[in-house]
C-alpha cells in the first residue's frame, strides 16, 4: 500500500468518527439524541474550545508546565535508574539484598503516592516530577540492569583479551550495552514521564494540562475535558516523534527489528 493511500485511510477514520459523533450528538434519531451533549459535548464545541485556548494563549502556560515537569521527571528518573541499575548489576550482593524491596516498590500503584508527594512537596511542580520519577526510574533501572547483565560473554572476553582494564570495559562494553537497552525503552519511559506529570496535576495543582482537564470536569464542562484530552494526545504524539528522531540518531548501529523498507 502506498503512503498516500495509507494516509488517506487514516484521515478517513478520523473524519468518519468525528462525523458520527457530530451527527449523534446533534440530530435526534427516533426522537432521541443518542449522545446527549451534556455527557458527550460535540466536535464543534470541542474544536472551538481548543481554538479559544490557543487564540487567547492560555494553553501555552499549561503546556509549558506539563512539558517542564515531564522533562524533569524523565531526566531525574533516568539518571537515577542508570546509576542504580549499573551499581546493582556490578554488585550482585547489593542486588540480592535489595531485590524484594525493589519488587515491592515497583508493584505499588504509583497513584497512591500522589497524595504523599503533594504533602511532602506541595502543590507546585515538584510533587508531579516526583510522581513521574517513580514511574521512569523503574523502567530505566530494569533495562540498564538487564543491559549490563546480558553483555555477550564473547564480547566481554574479547575486550579482556584486547587488554581492556575494568574502567575501559565499563566505558567500551558495559556502558554502551546498558545505554542501548535504555534507549530501546525510551518511548515507554518518556510516555510515563508525561503520565506522571498529568496524573499529578489532575490530583492537585494550579497549572498544567491535567489541571485544565480537572478544572473543566469540576464545572461539568465536557467540551473542555475533551479539548484537554485532544491537546494532550497531540502533545504526546509530538514528543514521541521527537523521541523517534533521537533514537534513530543514537541507535544507528542496531539492526532494525521491524523489516520496514
Amino acid at each position: 500500500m502506498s503512503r498516500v493511500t495509507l494516509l488517506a485511510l487514516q484521515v478517513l477514520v478520523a473524519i468518519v468518527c468525528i462525523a458520527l459523533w457530530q451527527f449523534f450528538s446533534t440530530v435526534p434519531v427516533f426522537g432521541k439524541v443518542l449522545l446527549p451533549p451534556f455527557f458527550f459535548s460535540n466536535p464543534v464545541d470541542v474544536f472551538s474550545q481548543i481554538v479559544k485556548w490557543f487564540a487567547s494563549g492560555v494553553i501555552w502556560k499549561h503546556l509549558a508546565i506539563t512539558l517542564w515537569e515531564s522533562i524533569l521527571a524523565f531526566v531525574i528518573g533516568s539518571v537515577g535508574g542508570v546509576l542504580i541499575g549499573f551499581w546493582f548489576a556490578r554488585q550482585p550482593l547489593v542486588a540480592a539484598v535489595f531485590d524484594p524491596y525493589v519488587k515491592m516498590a515497583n508493584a505499588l500503584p504509583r497513584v497512591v503516592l500522589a497524595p504523599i508527594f503533594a504533602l511532602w512537596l506541595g502543590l507546585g511542580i515538584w510533587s508531579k516530577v516526583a510522581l513521574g520519577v517513580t514511574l521512569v526510574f523503574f523502567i530505566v533501572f530494569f533495562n540498564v540492569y538487564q543491559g549490563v547483565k546480558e553483555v555477550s560473554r564473547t564480547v566481554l572476553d574479547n575486550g579482556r583479551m584486547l587488554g581492556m582494564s575494568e574502567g575501559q570495559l565499563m566505558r567500551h562494553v558495559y556502558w554502551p550495552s546498558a545505554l542501548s537497552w535504555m534507549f530501546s525503552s525510551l518511548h515507554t519511559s518518556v510516555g510515563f514521564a508525561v503520565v506522571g506529570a498529568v496524573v499529578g496535576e489532575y490530583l492537585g495543582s494550579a497549572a498544567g494540562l491535567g489541571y485544565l482537564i480537572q478544572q473543566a470536569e469540576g464545572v461539568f464542562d465536557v467540551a473542555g475535558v475533551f479539548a484537554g484530552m485532544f491537546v494532550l494526545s497531540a502533545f504526546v504524539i509530538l514528543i514521541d516523534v521527537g523521541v523517534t528522531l533521537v533514537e534513530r540518531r543514537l541507535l544507528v548501529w542496531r539492526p532494525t527489528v521491524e523489516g520496514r523498507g
Partner: protein
Amino acid sequence: MTTPMAVALEDAKVAFRLGDGRVYTAVEKAHLTVAQGEFVAIVGPTGCGKSTLLNVAAGLLKPAAGSARIFDRPLAGLNRDAGYLFQADALFPWKTALDNVAIGLEIKGTPRAEALPLAQKWLTSVGLGAFAGRYPHMLSGGQRKRVALAQVLIRDPKILLMDEPFGPLDAQTRQVMGNLLLDLWNADRKAVLFVTHDLEEAIALADRVVIMSAGPSSRIIGDWRVTLPRPRDIFEVRMDKEFHALHREIWSVLKDEVMKGYAQSAQAEAV
C-alpha cells in the same frame, strides 16, 4: 634450545565443577608446545576440549594441575602476549568497523588521531578499506571475521590464538579467509595456535597438526609435522600428493576418536 617456546603447556589438566557437585575433567595431562614462528593446529572431535586448551593458553581458564608457560614465564592471569580470535562474533556492535579495529590500539593509550589511520590501513589489508563506516550488523559473516582479524593483528601480538575462527563461515569463504590468514601470517610469522575440527583446513594451514582424543578426559594422541612448502595456497595445496598421504594417515587415527565422540554424545542423549 636457547629460544624459549612461545607457548608450553605441561601436563595441563582442566576440570570443571558441574552443577550437581561432580567434577568433569575436560582435558587430562596435555603436553603441548608452540615454538616461536610456528603454526600449530589442534584437531579433535566435537567436545574434546580443544577450545578449553586454547583458553588455558589465553589465561581465560586456569589449569587444575600442570602449568602453562608463555615465553618461559609462568602464565598468571590473562596472556598479555596473545591475540585471541573467537569463534562467535566478538566485535563491539556499537562501534563501526574502523572504531572496532582502532580500539585495539586505543586501549594501549595510542591517541585516537594516530590510531585511526593505522586502523584504516589494517582494514585495507584485510580487504575492507571501503567498509570503514559500517557497523558489524551491516557486514557479512566473512567480513566480520576480517574486521576481527584486523582488530587482533593491529596490536601486533606475539602469539595468535584462534578458536575455530572460520567455523561459522561457508566453505568458499573459509578458504578465502585461510589464504588471507596465511598471507598476513607470512609477513611476520607469529606463533599460532589454531583450533579446528576440519582436518583439511588444519593440514593446509599449519606446520604441525595435533590430534586430541574424544572427551571427557581427552588427551593429545598424535602430533604430525606438515612439510608442505610455503608459501602455500589453500586451493592448490589440497591437490598435492603429500597432502593426501598425510590426510589419510592422520584421518586413520582421528576417525576412531570421531566415532567414539559420536557414540558418547548419542549415549548421553539416550540417557
